[in-house]
């Protein structure tokens, strides 16, 4: 038995036989092509290409280029945070409400504390998001109650708090300093500042998950919580950290929203939590936890937003956007399942020689 196991080292893409240079290249290509992230990125490029062919101002005009990069920045942050929580086999449905609260806080700070430095406001938003995430995390990690229920409840509660605090006031663009609003469209070498921030955050999260021990432990916890506990990992602390980070990123997303859109009304972030989960799922993050990369979630987020913006250009009334998103999510989940089945069948075959 063991002899067969060591002999047949699986070369992805190679049909069998002696591995030569051609097979190695094919192997690497196959591995890359099989990579979910690359596949989603390819789909994204195809969408952009088709839209640009139809109307080249989609990509090739200053506005188009800027909007293409800028509009997904909010969902990027949310998807990155959501992805960390999903990897630990949880979910956070309260991010939309968190975003609304911090966006409103941003406006309120600017109105009530004239001359407050922008960086303080950003930090305040992130801090508030982290606190809200902490509440979720404590209840989920230590209460051992399903995250779905808890975050469902906090979604209601946080939104209710925001509405009560705001009353029927809105924050208008005139209330915020023009320097802050300018951040919303400022570009560095034609790349919008907010996008740079979002991508930087995603990179940091990716690095953390890939290299830091506590980051990698998140994957372990998601793959098999019982085994992780037996192994001695501090499961509640890690899960708590994931929720705090998710909340912090949602807080940052709220500040970004205020900068980008300039007004904060009561409907901010309504329904965006499911988009964040969808983006992660499309990007290859398994809903049952344990696998997926933040890059996949990020590309998934960009794809979702870009499809929304490309539909009117392709002549499809953007009313159909949600249907397209739904079909994509279903397709991603089915694809994951089919691939997993094939993989386990392949392992079975190899095991049987």
């Amino acid at each position: 038995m063991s002899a067969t196991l060591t002999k047949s080292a699986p070369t992805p893409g190679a049909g069998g036989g002696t591995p030569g240079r051609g097979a190695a290249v094919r192997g690497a290509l196959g591995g890359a092509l099989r990579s979910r992230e690359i596949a989603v990125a390819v789909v994204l490029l195809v969408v952009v290409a088709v839209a640009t062919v139809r109307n080249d101002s989609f990509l090739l005009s200053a506005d188009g280029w800027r909007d293409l990069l800028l509009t997904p920045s909010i969902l990027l942050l949310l998807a990155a945070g959501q992805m960390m929580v999903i990897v630990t086999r949880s979910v956070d449905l309260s991010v939309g409400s968190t975003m609304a609260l911090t966006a409103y806080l941003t406006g309120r700070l600017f109105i009530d504390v004239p001359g407050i430095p922008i960086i303080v406001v950003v930090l305040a938003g992130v801090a508030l998001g982290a606190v809200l995430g902490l509440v979720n995390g404590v209840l989920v990690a230590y209460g051992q109650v399903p995250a779905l229920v808890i975050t469902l409840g906090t979604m209601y509660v946080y939104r209710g708090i925001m509405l009560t605090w705001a009353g029927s006031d809105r924050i208008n663009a005139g209330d915020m300093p023009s320097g802050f609003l300018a951040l919303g469209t400022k570009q560095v070498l034609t790349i919008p500042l907010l996008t740079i921030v979002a991508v930087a955050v995603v990179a940091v999260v990716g690095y953390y998950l890939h290299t830091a021990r506590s980051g990698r432990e998140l994957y372990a916890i998601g793959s098999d919580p019982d085994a992780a506990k037996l192994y001695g990992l501090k499961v509640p602390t890690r899960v708590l950290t994931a929720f705090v980070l998710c909340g912090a990123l949602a807080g940052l997303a709220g500040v970004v929203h205020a900068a980008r859109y300039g007004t904060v009304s009561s409907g901010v972030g309504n329904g965006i939590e499911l988009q964040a989960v969808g983006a992660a799922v499309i990007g290859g993050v398994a809903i049952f936890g344990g696998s997926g990369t933040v890059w996949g979630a990020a590309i998934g987020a960009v794809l979702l937003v870009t499809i929304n913006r490309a539909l009117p250009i392709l002549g499809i009334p953007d009313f159909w956007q949600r249907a397209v998103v739904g079909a994509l999510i279903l397709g991603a989940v089915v694809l994951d399942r089919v691939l997993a089945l094939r993989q386990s069948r392949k392992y079975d075959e190899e095991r049987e020689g």
Partner: protein
Amino acid sequence: MKFHSKRATTLVALTLAASAALTACGGDDGGSGGGGGDDATITFLPKNLGNPYFDASSTGGQNAVDAFGGSFEEVGPTEATPDAQVPFINTAAQQGVGALVISANDPTALGDALEEARDAGVKVVTFDSDVDAEYRDVFINQASAEGIAKAQVDLVAEQIGGEGEVAILSAAANATNQNAWIDLMEEELAASYPDIELVETVYGDDDDQTSFDKTAALLQTHPNLKGIISPTTVGIAAAARYLSTSDFKGQVALTGLGTPDQMRPFIEDGTVTAFALWNPEELGYLAAYAAHALIDGDITGEEGDTFEAGDLGEYTVGENGEVILGEPTVFNADNIDDFSF
């Protein structure tokens, strides 16, 4: 055994927790005035809350109610949809308020709820956006629909030189008033400006972010667009904000119905040249007085009825129970600093 006490404790704990929550809520008098209506209460129900236009009209309503000594309440949903307005109409009926002053999100969907309210003795006044005449007593219209449509069409035609492509950024797809104006605008364009082509009408649902994104999509989809008309204050504010950071600023004319306070920065930076509106405070003020007259029995909504409206003078009910406030005002760089609402 632990079992018994655990169950019992669950029972008690849940009850206590909920009672605590309820007492907390019952104690603090949040919301908009603490429930309980009687004949002197006038409840304002705008299309949605958080809309500066309706904030102004409610201020006017409050002023009127204070003047004639009634009690004022404002309620409303956060999204501008008809099914979100129905529960508030129901509540007004349950409370038996004197009158309900409503700007409707749909001409017929609210009919059943309004009939129930009228059966319960509540007078129904519509303002800004009407329902079918059979469901209400009086409609306070800000200006004649033809006047509003013509003003906007003339403004955009003037700004684009009489020819080119235009688009409309409206509110909700079923909104009575916007749809009435859009129909008349299309007629006016066909009649007076045959060289102007209306390429698309998009709906921003009176939501700021949606209107913002829809403006971006419009500009992208129609590269030859010369003008945008937005007959809703939320839409024009969002469109102006997008336009002012876009390459199209100055190339695409933006006009429609906007409040001076929201549009002032965009007049100053040149994104918008001129737009129109009336005074929503006066509209709310007049609506409240009409409601008061209905409650007192001074008028019944018949054509020819007259009533006093405080500082605004005397008004006569016209055809179909409609009362017209006046003519729309055009705002531009010359006069925008004279107004503050």
